[in-house]
């Protein structure tokens, strides 16, 4: 059970590929900072490998003007939710 933290936009497709290769069945992906752009419907292909186990940090999405534009398949979490995810998952891995 691993929480993956990703802060790069979907433009970094090699990074998304590497992450998908390491992504386990019980893992979860949290999109922060510029990775919020991956939660746009137009970028759905970049998240296809993660089986819907994806959240996005709401304050980072909001600061980029993306709230209300994100895919319904991606759960919004606030900063308290970010902390809660790190409490739920015993280990985390940051990709950059």
């Amino acid at each position, binding site marked *: 059970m691993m929480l993956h*933290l990703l*802060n790069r936009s979907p433009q970094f497709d090699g990074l998304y590929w590497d992450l998908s290769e390491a992504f386990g069945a019980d893992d979860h992906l949290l999109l*922060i*900072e*510029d990775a919020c752009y991956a939660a746009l419907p137009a970028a759905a292909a970049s998240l296809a490998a993660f089986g819907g186990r994806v959240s996005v940090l709401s*304050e*980072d999405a909001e600061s980029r003007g993306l709230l209300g534009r994100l895919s319904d398949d991606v759960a919004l979490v606030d*900063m*308290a939710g*970010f*902390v*809660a995810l*790190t*409490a739920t998952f*015993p280990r*985390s*891995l*940051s*990709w*950059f």
Partner: protein
Amino acid sequence: MIDRPYDVLSYALLVHAAPYSEQGALSALRFAQAAVAQGHRVSSVFFYRDGVHNASTLMAPPQDEVHLAEGWRSLAQEHGTELLICVAAGLRRGLMSAEESARHGREAHNLEPPFVLTGLGQLVDAMLGNDRVITFAP
């Protein structure tokens, strides 16, 4: 004792991100503030590579912006968080305590407590001695 629906955890944060040029330092500070607000303990923050610039005493952002160094200092003062600066990364980038400045024959210093210069051994201690280690990338 406050009854909480979850375990209280101890956290160590690893900050690679330079202040203001990347978002990671602000993300780390916001995370730390949210963690302590939930009753968790953020026992240490280790600043590595360009992240060491978070410690500069001379940081002077515009008054209507987040003051990252001040935010870290408040975290240390209010919650006992250790602010650990990698000494090798710091000296390379001109981050010096008064003691290091004197040792290197310099006339100024720009690192003061609660930030402390330390080694990678402290990072290993932080990784092994806490329930969670969260890395904030550049």
